[in-house]
């Protein structure tokens, strides 16, 4: 049976809407402290990676609290499709034995 998967490319829609009047879209990830994950902060427009980094610095890091930045072309991200979120995610929701909730977390462990 042929695949009916309809994954999306982030940013493709907004780039299509913008035509050629806008610069490419980038997704920005910020890290708040050593060892913490880079988390999605938002997006911006820039013509290349260096400018995307600079713009990210000014838009998302200028009020402090950031020690590292990633910028990624939005088109490089493949996202799951909202219309298939049922089959994609629901099977995991009703199997409690898959969840790690029966373990005791020792005191003093952080970042879990």
């Amino acid at each position, binding site marked *: 049976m042929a695949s009916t998967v309809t994954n999306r490319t982030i940013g493709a829609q907004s780039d299509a809407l913008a035509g050629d009047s806008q*610069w490419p879209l980038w997704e920005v990830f910020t890290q708040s402290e050593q060892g913490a994950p880079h988390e999605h902060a938002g997006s*911006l*427009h*820039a*013509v290349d990676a*260096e*400018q995307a980094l*600079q*713009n990210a*610095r*000014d*838009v998302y890091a*200028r009020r402090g609290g950031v020690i590292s930045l990633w910028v990624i072309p939005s088109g490089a991200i493949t996202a799951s499709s909202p219309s298939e979120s049922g089959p994609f995610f629901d099977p995991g929701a009703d199997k409690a034995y898959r969840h790690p909730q029966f373990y005791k977390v020792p005191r003093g462990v952080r970042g879990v």
Partner: protein
Amino acid sequence: MTSPAPSVVPAPPSPPNALFEYLLRLGDDRLILGHRLSEWCGHAPILEEDIALANVALDLLGQATILLRMAGEVEGQGRNEDALAYFREAIEFRNCQLVELPKGDFGFTIARQFLFDVYDVVLLDALTASTNTELAAIAAKSLKEARYHVRHSGEWMLKLGDGTDESHRRVQTALDSLWRFTAELFAADPVDAELAAAGIVPDLASLKPKWASLVREVLDRATLTSPADTPRLAGARGGRTGAHTEHLGHLLAEMQIVARSHPGATW
């Protein structure tokens, strides 16, 4: 009987407090350039650049605040940074003429910013070795910001210079008209000489080769042509002694009117 008017206006004598004068030069450069940059707020080509320029403007304003505050303390006449920023006339300002020129188009603003940013990095780097520990500390703090400023404006020089025919033409035109204002940045006078002898500030002339090579490196990569240096006329005056272009007065009128209309107001 009146004495004949002198044919040449004599240069003003060296002021009594050289450090005060020097701090005004540093502070006013940043105050005026910061104000010029702030004129882009809401008008920059794209939202991200609008924020970036405002960010640089705020950095410069912050530096000006600290430098003018220190100037007021050095002067010892009870003037704080606000008094110095808002209640001096154009002739009392000590910024170089480069920073007071109208913002022009985006290419002009970037070219001016780039020429100043390179100067700023070279100067602040040298000032971190000042024998005046307070000035050295301010320079060290400002240098971090200046290094980012030049990264930003330098990147734009590459994009505009090596971009489209129109962007290349605009930024080259800007460079050609701005170049003659760069001589003033390295023209030392008795104020510089007195402070340099005490190890408080660097010898300005010694900074020029470093500045020139850093600027030329970027212009070459940006496929832009370095304009030829025009020799500075002997006895030429400039912003450092209060001789300004017609543009500074208009800038001050806008910058100072609220503080002058409502003296002492707080918000």
